[in-house]
């Protein structure tokens, strides 16, 4: 078990806190543009102008979850507006697709513009396969109505009057689409709009169109033949996952789908006129050309969106945690992040002690049910404590020893060491430092004995959550249960407690210094204060207040559990609006 893995320090925050920071960060449109585009994309030979709006509000909230030890999954509601001015069906010239896109971001570390290390999320290894599009709505279905609309839209651009030689002059064929062409004489009958239906014959889809016509044929005998009628023709519909095509220039070879011309006026010449008119009618239909429109299946639309999202996100990244040094020129160690999925914990490791990036592994969860917890690893604690002890007692631990001379007696301290003990270690509670040592006691007129000693030093933590200047935690060492007043105990306490106080001060300062919090002024005696253990600003967006509650000592090191509150820095227009304090014309 290790709270800090191969690092010295670790900060763990809950998924809930990470989400809060994310939501606040997401509100910053400089970092995370909510309006993307417009940008153009070719769609079946047409140009689509696309705009995207990403959302995070009460009705459609964004979210993030922990996917694996290195990846977060973002859930982002979005609206995609596609404008195709030249869409065959004008009703489809502007559509809005709504969905929630989810995609993976990777915990990564880089240096920001100022050279400060940043732990954040990058999308460098994103690909379309890792993106999902959920609950996609707004995708139009291309059916007979849409094809009919396309035909109606095409009608104005094609000839409506066709001439052909007739026995006694020139025959005229008019094609109507309701009253779309008011120049036609005679005008269209009341039910004159072009109609379209889709039929399936032999497993193939066809568009069957009925177009109202008028013919005027000088037949040379008697009055000219005039009649309203209709041409019914069918054309093949070809669908792909992204398009629908109706080739109006090619008549299918299915007998039941032959072009049929009907003329209302009964006349001996009617049959002849129909026979001669039919090829003309087919030519007229040819004029509609090949009608092609975008027609995405759900799956194809999702795939396209995924590809676009992956492409857009790939160069992007944003910071989650920036240890900021207030000391000019001081470069802090790059933090490394891991996600503990089972416990919904973001773990940030700081100051690698041994190995390289390839040796980095996730730490154990020590946050438990708390919002946040800070840890100092065992090796770091022991290393600092040994250095402080050796400096406090020059000559101890390998030298000639440290002589102390008190009225109670004189002794040369030969070794002193502080180890970490779990709650219950040596039958002592709670977790504590276990101090061991050896001294040569100088007794007059007597050979000097070697005395080995050991005992617990506890660290008492006092929480100050309601200080108007901000919450803080106070730490004070205490040596076991001693009878107050026994002067020899005073000697022990007076020797050990101050040095443990210095040890705590050095360890706590280094922890806060590396994480980027604020160091407190030294206080008298052996008391250590933890005032602002975390950097107050995160990504320049969220203001964080971290209140530590206590210290837990174990053989893994020190843990400081606490709570965290996150709020947006400053006040934005949205804050004012939400609070009902927006500027008004009469009260700017």
């Amino acid at each position, binding site marked *: 078990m290790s709270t800090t893995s191969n690092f010295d320090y670790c900060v763990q925050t809950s998924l809930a806190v990470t989400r809060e920071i994310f939501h606040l960060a997401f509100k910053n449109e400089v970092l995370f543009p909510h309006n993307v585009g417009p940008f153009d994309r070719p769609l079946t030979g047409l140009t689509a102008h696309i705009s995207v709006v990403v959302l995070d509000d009460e009705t459609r909230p964004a979210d993030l979850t922990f996917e694996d030890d290195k990846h977060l999954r973002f859930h982002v509601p979005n609206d995609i507006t596609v404008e195709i001015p030249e869409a065959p069906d004008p009703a489809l010239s502007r559509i809005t697709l709504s969905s929630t896109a989810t995609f993976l971001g990777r915990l990564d570390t880089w240096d920001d513009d100022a050279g400060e290390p940043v732990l954040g999320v990058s999308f460098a290894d994103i690909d379309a396969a890792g993106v999902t599009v959920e609950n996609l709505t707004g995708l139009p279905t291309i059916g007979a109505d849409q094809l009919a609309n396309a035909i109606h839209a095409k009608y104005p651009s094609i000839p409506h009057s066709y001439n052909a030689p007739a026995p006694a002059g020139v025959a005229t064929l008019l094609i109507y689409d309701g009253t779309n062409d008011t120049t036609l004489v005679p005008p269209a009958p009341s039910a004159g709009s072009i109609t379209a239906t889709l039929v399936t014959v032999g497993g193939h889809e066809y568009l069957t169109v009925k177009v109202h016509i008028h013919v005027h044929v000088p037949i040379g005998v008697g009055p000219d033949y005039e009649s309203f009628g209709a041409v019914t023709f069918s054309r093949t519909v070809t669908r792909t996952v992204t398009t629908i095509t109706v080739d109006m220039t090619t008549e299918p070879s299915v007998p039941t789908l032959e072009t049929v011309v009907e003329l209302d006026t009964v006349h001996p010449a009617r049959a002849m006129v129909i026979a001669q008119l039919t090829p003309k009618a087919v030519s007229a239909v040819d004029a509609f050309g090949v009608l092609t429109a975008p027609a995405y299946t759900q799956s194809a639309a999702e795939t396209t969106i995924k590809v676009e999202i992956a492409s857009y996100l790939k160069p992007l990244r944003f910071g989650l945690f920036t240890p900021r040094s*207030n*000391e000019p020129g001081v470069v802090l160690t790059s933090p490394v992040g891991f996600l503990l999925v089972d416990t919904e914990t973001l773990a940030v490791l700081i100051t690698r002690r041994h190995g390289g990036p390839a040796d980095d592994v996730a730490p154990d969860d020590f946050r438990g049910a708390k919002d946040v917890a800070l840890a100092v690893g065992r090796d770091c604690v022991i290393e600092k404590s040994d*250095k*402080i002890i050796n*400096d*406090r007692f020059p000559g101890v631990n390998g030298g000639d020893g440290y002589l102390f001379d*008190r*009225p*109670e*007696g*004189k002794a040369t301290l030969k070794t002193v060491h502080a180890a970490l003990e779990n709650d219950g270690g040596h039958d002592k509670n709670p977790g504590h430092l276990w101090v061991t040592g050896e001294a040569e006691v*100088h*007794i*007059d*007129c*007597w*050979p*000097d*004995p*070697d*005395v*080995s*000693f050991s*005992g617990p030093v506890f660290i008492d933590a006092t929480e*100050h959550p309601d200080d108007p200047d901000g919450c*803080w935690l*106070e730490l*004070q060492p205490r040596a*076991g*249960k*001693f*009878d107050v007043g*026994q*002067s*020899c*105990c*005073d000697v*022990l*306490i*007076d*020797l050990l*407690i*101050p*040095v443990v106080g*210095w040890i705590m001060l*050095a360890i706590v300062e280094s922890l806060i*210094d590396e994480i980027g919090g*604020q*160091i*407190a*002024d*030294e*206080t*008298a*005696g*052996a*008391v250590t*204060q933890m*005032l*602002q253990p975390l950097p107050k600003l995160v990504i320049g967006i969220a203001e964080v207040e971290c209140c530590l509650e206590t210290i837990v000592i174990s053989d893994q090191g020190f843990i400081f559990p606490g709570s965290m509150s996150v709020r947006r820095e400053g006040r934005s227009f949205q804050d004012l609006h939400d609070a009902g304090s927006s500027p008004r014309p009469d009260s700017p």
Partner: protein
Amino acid sequence: MADEKIKFSRPQVADTSTALKIDSHRLLLAKRSAIIDALVEDPDRGKLLFANAALAFKDSGVQLSPAISNHVLHTVRQSAAATTRREQLTTQLRDALGVVPKPSDTEWLAKTLFTKLKVAPLVTRGHQRVYQPAVPVDIQAKLRTHLAPSTRPRLAARGTAAAPTPPPWRLDLDAKLPKLNEARSTPKALTLEDLWFYLDSHELVRPILELAILERSVMPTLTREQYDAVKAGKPTGGFIDWIDSVTFPDERLRPARKPTSDAAAVKKAVAKKAVAKKAVAKKAVAKKPR
């Protein structure tokens, strides 16, 4: 093989008739090794030396006369230098006050100061005594190198918890005293700590305070009941609880003759030869006919 710890197999002396009897300081010194051998025969008994040396000796089969027992207890409780200083101060104060000083007696202190020496009582409540730092100033400077640089921006410290009262021997007897107002009433008892505020009030206050500090600064001798508790492995709430073992390295118990170096041996031989040569020359002169 430095600090070799020797355990001797020696039967426990249970019978007082065969116990080692020590009734003089000379015998005490002469029998040191045997006494220690008996003490450390049981490895758990070593720490009992600091609990109550006299009882520890007795349990080891060493019978001390009352005077030697008293001597042993005092030797363990306080250093010789402190004991000597106590005797000096006691003599000085007895001569000055005409009575044996009892500075650990708070009522005696008050009576001596306010009645005998006619020192005016002061309002000491709410004032802080000055103590010497627990960590020497030069060591503090070294320890501070482990902290963040002093140039690093820091937040102002908040109110601190009450630090444990330092031991009395750290009272700074040379510190500047606060100016205190006279009290309206004379206290009937005075603590050692409050006596500090009167250092400038009378020339005898300093020796009384020093003696009081020395009397307080002794290794406690546990009662028989407490001693038995330690023997049974029970905690006493004292310093004894921290002692794991007490051993006497053989080199200190029985220091060996220091081997002479080659150069020293040669020098010694040369000197011896020179003396012999001188003696021969002297003899030759004496034999010369006149």
